[in-house]
Structure formats: structure tokens, C-alpha cells
């Protein structure tokens, strides 16, 4: 591929356009054209995946895809594919394909599917935009678009509870967006630029103004990243359908917040600057607190999806903690968790959805004996749970190991203690579920059992968690292979530190 191949910038546009065009097409389709809609959905998802793979290959070879035009004096709309953006784009496009397939099965026979899948696609378009954003402004544009396009998904069921959750979601996220905007406008007034650059664009001595801007930006992003005390919307949003939860927790929303924090620290302020200004240590402390807080709260949840939600609050902060360690190893640990957490958490949510759809089980104490009834789903769940706990050789272990090394490198031994405590808590809230699945006998009937032919559940619902569970094992075992999440995270960090 030539350095200046004319098609290169258009790859970015096409990667965005696949889901955008799919969204428009789906909105236009009449409600009853299910076959065509599914084809359009999966076709767009597959095409996007191909485009992203091409770009990943290009970026690996050292190409940089870039496209920009001026919107306002001084304000550029810029798309750019660097190694960090490919990380997030790759995650979202792989998981989008699986989630779409899952959602097709999940929403079989339910109303308003055109609306649902239309916004679903818009949501993924926004996520791609966030990943490919080449400056803070473009990032903000897609960040707000993500807020707007997820709202109809959260309130999809239209019940009073869903509307209440949607209200809380929108209040939290739009306020976060407003705070972020204030920080961004101030940053532009101070520095005159909104660009992302390896090593940061902020120069000179640390000042209180810059610290205030940092706090505003991180607080705005922290809402979506569910950083304590801004996490309140996430457990409530659990009323949404399972594919939406998967999207919120693994693919899009929470990740967008965490990814934004990574961008702000490494490409706007610069790791070195932020560290010298003393901005990272307090954030690391907050992230560590969120890790423990989320885990403790998860212990007390009896609803399966709510327990997973608190677990997300805890797990996402690993990413932030890793970045805040301000060293190469810590950053690798944080970045790799961006992918690992996504794949593990989506497995767990798929499984939770399967239990709810097939057996009518929502609460943890109703899960007794679900293992023998739904073996494949339960094996996937078990793998996901062990991954979260950090059992070798699964994906979660790689994260925790790298983070542990990173904290020693940064001479912050208390972080190791936090990691250990969190792993014990993870075990404390996941193992009882696993125990119920496999080692408790079922005495009474399932709350609402549905039979789906030969397999334990509908095959649209079965394959996505099985595939992601296999991935959890593979990316752990083959962590050292090129293009594994770990190797890619190392590539990102190498380029960040030696631009």
C-alpha cells in the first residue's frame, strides 16, 4: 500500500459511513421487513470490520490515515487513525458485529425494531467517530452524538422504569458533556489548539488554570466512565434490553469515557506534563477507590444485571488507574484492559440475557442448576467470571499482572494492594454465581422457560457469548502474539513514548 494512496482518507469516511448509512436505511424500512433489516445490519457490521482490519494493517505498517476540513474559524473536523484509535475502533467493530447478531435474536417478535436498530447503528457510528476523532472537538461531537443515540435504546421498552432510567442517564451524561465543553472552550482559549499529539500539546509550566481545565475535562468524561461519584446512572440503566447493556458496558458508552480520559492524559496534556503537575496521583486515588467501591457494592446486589453493572464500575477504573500510573507498563495495563474488559463483560451480559430470555431468570438466587440446563452459556459465563477475577491464563490475568508490574515500576506499592483486594472481592461476588450454576440442584420449575428447538437457546443468542468466551481464553493464552490486545497496547505505548 503506497504512502499516499488516494483511497486512504476515504477509508475513515467509509468506516463511519457504514453504520451511518445502515442507520438511515433501517429508519426508512417498514417495521415488518425483518429479513432485509437483518441483512443490512449484519452486512454493514461485517463491512465495517473489514475496513477496520485494513486500517489496522495499515497503521501497523506505519501509515497514518487523516482527513480534515474547517468548520469554524480555528475549529477543524478531523478524523485520524493512529494506533490508539485503532484499538478502540477494532474493539467496537468486532463487538458490534456480535452484538448485532445477538440483538436480532433477542428482539425477535418485539415491537419498534426499526427504531431500535436504527439508533443502535447510530450509536456504533458515534463510537467509531470517537475512536477516529483526530482532535478534541471531533471527539466531543461524537461523544454527544453517542449520548443522544443511546437515549432511545435505554428507554426502548417505554415502561415507567425505563423512562426513569433514561431521564437519569440523560441528566448525567448531558451535564457531563456540558462540563467537558466548558473545559474544552477554556483549553482552547488558553492554548489555542484542540489537537491530539503524542506527548501532548500543552506546554510550559503547570498553572492552576491548566489544572482546572484538566479537572473539568476529566469530570466530564468521568460521567460516562462511571467514575465515583458520577456512576449513579449506570446501575439504573440496567432496565434496558440486554444487547443495550452490552453496548453500554462493553462497546460504547463506558468505554468512550475511559478512552476519552486516555486521550486527554496522553495526547492533550501529555503524560509527563500531567504527572509533573501532580494531576495523575489524585485521579489514580479516585480510580482505586472506585475499583473497591464498585466491587463492594456488587457484593450486595441480588439482581444479576445489577451485580454486573457494579462490576463494570469497578473494572473500568482499572483502565484509568493504569494510565494514571504514568509509566509505560501501567499504560499498557490500562490500555489492554480497554479491550479485555470489553470482551469479558460482553460475554457476561450476553449470558445474563440468555438466562433472562430462555429461563426467565433475573435474580442470582434463581440461577440454581442453570449450568446443566444451559451448558454452553454457563461455560461461557464461568470463563468470563474467572477472567474478571484474574485467573491465569485468562485475559483478566494479563491485565492485573501488567498493572501490578506497572505500579511497582511507578513505585506505588499500594496499587498492588488495591489490585489484590479487588481480585478477592471479584471472587467473592462471582464465585457464588458460578457455584449456583453448577453445584446447586434445581428443585422447582424455571420462572418462564422458553424452548428453542434443539439447542439450549436460540442460536442467534448462543453463538455470540460462546465466541467471546473463546476469545477470552485465546487472548490470554496467546497474549504475546502480534495483534493480540497486549501486543497492540505495547505498540501504542512504544509509539507514544518514542513518537
Amino acid at each position, binding site marked *: 500500500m503506497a504512502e499516499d494512496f488516494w483511497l486512504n482518507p476515504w477509508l475513515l469516511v467509509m468506516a463511519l459511513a457504514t453504520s451511518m448509512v445502515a442507520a438511515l436505511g433501517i*429508519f426508512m424500512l417498514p417495521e415488518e421487513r425483518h429479513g432485509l433489516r437483518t441483512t443490512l445490519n449484519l452486512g454493514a457490521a461485517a463491512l465495517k470490520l473489514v475496513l477496520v482490519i485494513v486500517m489496522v494493517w495499515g497503521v501497523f505498517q506505519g501509515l497514518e490515515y487523516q482527513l480534515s476540513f474547517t468548520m*469554524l474559524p480555528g*475549529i477543524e*473536523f478531523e478524523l485520524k487513525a493512529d494506533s490508539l484509535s485503532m484499538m478502540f475502533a477494532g474493539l467496537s467493530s468486532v463487538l458490534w458485529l456480535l452484538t448485532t447478531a445477538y440483538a436480532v435474536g433477542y428482539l425477535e417478535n418485539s415491537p419498534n425494531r426499526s427504531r431500535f436498530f436504527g439508533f443502535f447503528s447510530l450509536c456504533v457510528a458515534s463510537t467509531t467517530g470517537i475512536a477516529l476523532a483526530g482532535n478534541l472537538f471531533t471527539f466531543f461531537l461524537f461523544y454527544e*452524538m453517542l449520548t443522544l443515540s443511546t437515549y*432511545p435504546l435505554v428507554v426502548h421498552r417505554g*415502561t415507567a422504569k425505563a423512562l426513569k432510567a433514561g431521564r437519569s442517564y440523560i441528566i448525567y451524561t448531558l451535564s457531563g458533556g*456540558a462540563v467537558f465543553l466548558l473545559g474544552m472552550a477554556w483549553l*482552547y482559549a488558553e492554548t489555542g489548539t484542540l489537537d491530539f499529539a503524542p506527548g501532548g500539546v500543552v506546554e510550559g509550566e503547570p498553572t492552576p488554570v491548566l489544572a482546572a481545565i484538566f479537572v473539568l475535562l476529566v469530570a466530564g468524561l468521568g460521567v460516562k466512565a462511571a467514575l465515583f461519584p458520577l456512576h449513579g446512572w449506570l446501575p439504573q440503566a440496567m432496565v434496558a434490553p440486554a444487547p443495550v447493556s452490552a453496548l453500554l458496558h462493553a462497546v460504547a458508552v463506558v468505554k468512550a469515557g475511559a478512552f476519552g480520559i486516555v486521550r486527554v492524559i496522553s495526547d492533550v496534556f501529555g503524560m509527563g506534563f500531567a504527572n509533573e503537575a501532580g494531576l495523575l496521583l489524585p485521579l489514580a486515588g479516585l480510580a482505586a477507590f472506585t475499583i473497591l467501591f464498585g466491587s463492594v457494592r456488587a457484593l450486595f446486589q441480588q439482581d444479576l444485571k445489577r451485580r454486573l453493572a457494579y462490576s463494570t464500575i469497578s473494572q473500568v477504573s482499572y483502565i484509568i488507574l493504569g494510565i494514571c500510573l504514568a509509566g509505560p507498563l501501567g499504560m499498557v495495563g490500562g490500555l489492554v484492559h480497554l479491550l479485555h474488559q470489553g470482551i469479558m463483560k460482553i460475554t457476561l451480559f450476553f449470558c445474563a440475557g440468555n438466562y433472562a430470555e430462555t429461563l426467565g431468570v433475573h435474580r442470582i438466587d434463581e440461577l440454581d442448576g442453570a449450568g446443566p440446563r444451559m451448558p454452553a452459556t454457563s461455560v461461557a459465563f464461568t470463563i468470563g467470571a474467572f477472567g474478571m477475577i484474574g485467573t491465569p491464563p485468562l485475559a483478566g490475568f494479563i491485565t492485573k499482572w501488567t498493572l501490578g508490574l506497572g505500579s511497582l515500576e511507578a513505585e506505588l506499592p499500594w496499587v498492588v494492594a488495591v489490585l489484590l483486594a479487588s481480585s478477592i472481592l471479584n471472587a467473592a461476588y462471582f464465585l457464588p454465581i458460578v457455584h449456583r450454576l453448577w453445584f446447586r440442584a434445581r428443585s422447582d420449575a424455571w420462572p418462564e422457560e422458553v424452548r428453542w428447538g434443539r439447542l439450549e437457546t436460540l442460536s442467534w443468542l448462543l453463538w455470540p457469548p460462546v465466541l467471546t468466551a473463546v476469545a477470552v481464553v485465546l487472548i490470554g493464552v496467546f497474549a504475546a502474539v502480534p495483534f493480540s490486545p497486549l501486543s497492540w497496547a505495547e505498540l501504542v505505548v512504544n509509539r507514544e513514548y518514542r513518537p
Partner: protein
Amino acid sequence: MMAWLMAGLLFTPLAWAVMSLMAGFRAGWRLAWLGMAVQGLVSVLLWLAIADQGGFYYALGDWPAPLGIELRVDGLAVTFILLTATVATACGLHAGVYLDPDKPWQRYFWPLFWFLWAGLNAVWLGADLFNLYVGLELISLSAVGLVALGGAGDALRASLRYLLAALVGSLFYLLGVALIYGQFGTLSLGGVAQLAEDHTALAGAGIALALMLAGLALKTALFPLHGWLPPAHGIAPSPVSALLSALVLKASFYIAARLWLALGETQGSYGVAQLAGALGAAAVLWGSWMACLQPRLKQVVAYSTVAQVGYLFLLFPLTWQVSDQISQQAQEGMTLQVISHALAKAAMFLAAGNLVLSTGSSKVEDLAGVGRFLPFSLFSFGLAGVSLMSLPPSGGFAAKWLLLQATIGSGQWWWALVLIAGGLLSAAYVFRIYRASFQEASGQDDFHHPPRRLEAIPMALALLSLGLGLAGEPVLAIMGLPFEEDG
């Protein structure tokens, strides 16, 4: 050539007004097609001519001011002329289908519509204070007539209130004009500004400016003088509400802004500037809050106008004794806010009209289930809402961004908080509508589907306002077209 175009902009609508006065509603509707095409063409030609040669002055019939009619066209005027052509055409096309041709009073719709358009163009092009007054009166009277068209008791009450407010506003303005004339002996805005600069200590000019601004603020429905607006805009037929909110308010604001930019530096004071800003801020907060409480859909949209107009008055503090660059930013922000609000609000009123038409009820709570059956108009409403919430990439965002830069640059950070809070409050009322329409617990699933065109027009306007942010630079380039003093 240019003179003909400018005259065309004024006389075409007047001619059409007279012609459609003689025709009925249906014939007027057919005539209107041609008229809108002519107006659109003339507006675009004028823009091309200005882009080519720069702006200039023109005295109609070679009578100098104050006797004759002096016209002045520059980039800003062209921007607003194009905006007027777009929004008025959209509202006209919508009205032709929306209004019931069998009601006898509808025959007055087209004449009033054309008089309104003529008045708007007269204001954009006016160069002296008295002619601006004439344009303003033409606008007010035809707007009051349009509101009264409904004929029912409520509509008459609302339009009488509107008439009263408009007349009092005009009175104040005229008083100010008289004082200015007595003081300076000229009514040309440029001439007055020149004289005011040369003789800084002129007593009385400050009072005249304050009187004119007060009158214009009443006509622009600045808080706390906004009481007349929600009933009038809420009760008028949707295309009329759209015209009123999108364009009519902007005309009086445009005059106020030009007065301020010409005379504010010499005759204004820090107090006046901050007071105007504070009232604007109060309007943003109060209007949005009231919009959250209104039981009727169109009242929500009307109160949103009260709030959005408030942003415009931040121009006063942000251009008073600041550097040229910040003043420039603030003016550009205002222009974008005027344009994006005009497009978004017209889209919103038209979409709201469609929703009312199809649910058969004007109440917000009766929207339950609309999300399922009428997604298209709801979607237009939402897209317009994105611009009102000033989220990117809308024109509203571009405007807010420039204003934020101006507030931070001039150290008046308190206005930045107003801008941010206003965006959140507008999200509150937009999402209130969404919340209502996503409800599934509705007994009603029989919705009347409005004709395609009624649904397409608000969508087009909403997309324009959404896309305005992406095209911010070229639009600002029209506004920044140079003015040739001797052109």
C-alpha cells in the same frame, strides 16, 4: 443591476401582497409559488452581486435621507435576506397545505404573508432610523394580523395583547428616533454614529439610545417583557408561529444590535451592557424553566423562543469595549445563533404542528405512543432540538462555541455559565417531549398521518440547522463580505 435587485426585494413582496389581496386563498397559493421563486432568485442574485462587488448604499429615486428611502446592503444584510428567503419559503409551502382553504378568513393569509416579507427585507436593508421604523411597523401589523387569523376568542385576545406590546414598543422607539433627530439633525445610522463620535459629550443621545433599545427589547420579547409572546406564538397556526419565532423577533433584534454596534461604544455604558446581558441570561433561564412546565406542546416551543432570544442579548456585554477580535467573535456567534435558531425553531414549530395534527390534541401528555407511529415528525423535532440544545455539529453549537470564546476572552466568565446552563435546560424540555412520546402505555393507536410535504419541510429545515455548524465557515464568509464605502 444591484439597485434593481434591492428594489426587487422590496417591491416584489408588496406587489404580490396586492395581487393576492384580490385573489382568494387558493389562487393566492398558486401565485405564491411564483412569488417565492422570484424572491429566492433575487436574493441569491443579490448575494452573488455583493460577493462580486462588495456592499453599498443606494438612495431610492436619488432622494437623500431623511426624505427619501436610503438602502444599505452589506454581508450581514445579505445573510439575513437569504435566511428570510429560506425560512419564509418553507413556511409558505407548509402553509399552503396546512391551512384549511375553506375557512373564509384564510384569504387574508397571503397578503399578510407578503407584507411581512416586505417588512423584513426593508429592515435588513434599511439604513436610516425612520425607514427602519417603517419596516418594523409593517412587520408588526402584519404579524398581529396573522395571529388574529384563527378568529377564535383566544386568538383575538392573544393578538390584541401582541398589538398592544408592538405599539408600545414602537412608541418608545419612535421617541428615541425623534430625540436623535433633534440632537443630530440626521437619521442616517452611519451619520449619527459619526457625529456621536465627534461630539462625545452630547447629552440626551444616551437617553435616546436607551429608549430605542427598550422599545426594541419589548418587541423582541426580552425578559421580563416577554409576556405577550407565548400566547401569540402558541395559538397561531403552526406556519405563522414558525414565521413569528424564526424571523419577526429577529428583525427588532437586528435593529437593536445595529444601534448598539454603531452607538454603544460612545453612548452606552458598562451598566447598560451588563443589564442587557443579565436580562438575556434571565430570559434563558426563565424561558427554559417555563418551557419545562407547559402542558401544551406549542407553548413549550414558544417559551423555548423566549429562552433562545435571551442568548442574543449577550451581544451587548460581549461587544462593549472589548478588543476587535472578541467583538468579531461575539458578532459572528450572534449571527450564527440568529440563523440556527431561525431554522431550528421554524422546523420545531412546523413539526409540532404535524404532531398536533396527527394526535388531534395539543397536550404534551397525549403524545404517548407517537414515537411508534409518527417517527418522522418526531425525528425532525428532535433534530431541531439538537440545535437548540446547542450540541455539535449544529449551528447552535457553532454559535455557542464562538460566544464561549468571546466570554472567556473578555474575562466575563459568568456568561459562559449561562450558556452552559441554558443548553442543559433546553435539553430538559426537549427530552420532556421525547419522554412523553416514547411512552408505550397508551390507549390510542389511531394516528392521522399528515401529507408527505408537511413532514418533509420541517425535516429539511432541521437538517439545515444541524448542518449549519459544519458549514460555519462559508456562512460566516458571507457575513464578512466587505463593504465598499464608495461602491
